[in-house]
């Protein structure tokens, strides 16, 4: 211990500084997560939330044995992948626009708009989206008003489309923010050089700007996948309980059926999928940076 204290050197209160934080995270982060793992491996026992140390794999067998559950896992992952792709297509241009806006005032305004959209409570944003996209919502009423549609409304909400739009709205700021810094960091002389060598604007964009911003693209994709994969509130409100994803199953098993062990098992599966995606990301990131990570 004294060797450790010596190693941290002059500002020797280093370890003491970290003590409350370490203590807090150990008790309220590590212990709960470990017990969640243990509980997922426990014998199913309805209404009982404490670990009984009776290990079996019944919860996982049930998860992977029933289409209701494993299909929800596939649906959740597919949905998150689709949302990540759409978010990239919409988010990259916005990040590019912000990065290329040299006027300080306009740049700051755009950044503040994106940050506000990100930090505003998602349930409030969903209120707005639902008022826009409902059967008698503003979009349908507008289309009816100008005569594009008749009495039959466009089915925008309470279905898969609604969930996708909601999740893209939710995760777009995260994509934009992970791209802006990277695009701004690209040395402009590279783009200028390509241009002066005769490359057209689009060629420069695809051959220089996009490849150079790959680390940001990958980080954004990972982040968007993680947050849209784990969202509970967007699928419940925008999907009208028709798009059943893993977080909905967790809530139902635990809050409505009292099946704590099975709920914990679903949570572990979610955790595992997130972890897997993270590993894929790290491989991709290492490749993008030429193995320098």
């Amino acid at each position: 211990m004294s060797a450790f204290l010596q190693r941290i050197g002059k500002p020797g209160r280093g370890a003491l500084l970290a003590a409350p934080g370490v203590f807090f995270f150990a008790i309220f982060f590590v212990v709960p997560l470990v017990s969640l793992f243990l509980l997922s491996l426990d014998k199913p026992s309805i209404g009982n939330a404490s670990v009984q140390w009776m290990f079996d794999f019944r919860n996982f067998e049930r998860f992977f044995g029933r289409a209701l559950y494993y299909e929800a896992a596939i649906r959740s992952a597919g949905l998150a992948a689709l949302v990540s792709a759409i978010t990239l297509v919409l988010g990259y241009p916005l990040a590019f626009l912000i990065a290329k806006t040299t006027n300080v005032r306009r740049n700051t305004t755009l950044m503040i708009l994106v940050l506000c959209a990100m930090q505003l409570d998602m349930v409030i944003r969903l209120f707005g989206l639902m008022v826009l996209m409902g059967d008698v919502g503003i979009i349908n009423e507008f289309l009816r008003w100008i005569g594009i549609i008749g009495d039959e409304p466009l089915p925008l909400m309470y279905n898969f489309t609604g969930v996708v739009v909601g999740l893209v709205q939710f995760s777009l700021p995260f994509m934009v923010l992970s791209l802006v810094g990277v695009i701004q960091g690209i040395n402009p002389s590279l783009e200028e050089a390509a241009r002066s060598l005769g490359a057209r604007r689009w060629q420069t964009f695809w051959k220089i700007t996009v490849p150079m911003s790959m680390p940001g693209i990958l980080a954004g994709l990972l982040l968007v996948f993680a947050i849209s994969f784990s969202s509970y509130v967007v699928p419940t409100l925008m999907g009208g309980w028709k798009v059943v994803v893993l977080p909905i199953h967790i809530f139902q098993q635990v809050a409505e059926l009292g099946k704590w062990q099975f709920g914990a098992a679903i949570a572990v599966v979610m955790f595992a999928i997130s972890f897997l995606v993270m590993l894929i990301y790290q491989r991709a990131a290492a490749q993008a940076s030429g193995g320098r990570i």
Partner: protein
Amino acid sequence: MALADKSIRREAAVPFVLKLLAIMALILLLAPVVVVILAGLNSGDHLTFPPKGLSLRWVIAFFQSDAFLPAYLFSLVLAVVTMIISTILGTSIALFLARTEFRGKQMVRAFFMAPLMLPGIVLGLALYLFYLSSGLGLVRTMPGLVIGHVLVTCPYVIGTVNAALVGFDTTLEEAARSLGAKPLKTFRAITLPVISPGIIAGSVFSFIVSFGQFDVSLFLTPPDSNPLPIALYSSLRYTFEPTAAAAGIFAIFLVVVSMLITAKLTNLRQLANVNFS
């Protein structure tokens, strides 16, 4: 020269298709927010197209509401308490990380950032289970809820304070100490002024993240008092009350003010990288 000038200017111009997509993205981001404001200020029973007219009727209804006003105030208290604890814990962790070198430091850093990557509902469930089985009396209580919120907001403070500490010259502290200043005095006179923008930005972030937190609160909310997101969610499942939109207006106001404060204090681009480092 004029030619080169022109080519550089053209280079900075954003192609039309990209501009179009960027504008679509901005509309998608902001339209729901605008709709909430209009819905809260409209004079009809619900927001229609074309809109009827403006009135403060729903804002007044919000102040008389026994569902949304208490929820708003509860969220406010929750966010302030969370902010105070997160700021203290996060700042001390960031200071520790910035000035100690040991093997596996990156791992430790990633560990403190982990609550950001963990699905909120999984963290909420894990805490709920822990409270139930540990008998600490935290099940569906305010302290239990605060703990969950501190876990998801602490990383923001760690990130912003850490960013403020990058490039901080520790020899300044050593100089102060060698001139006879006590540790606390050194901290207040040398370290604090350097990191205070980071601390304030981190506290603003933890306040606003806690105020808008839904997933973690889901399993931890006390039965008799709901935070605003949970109260709004319960009402949104059945109807679109303009009173809820009026509550939303006050939440939007809080967010805008907070972000303006952060923008004044820090380089926004630095903040963008905080989440992911």
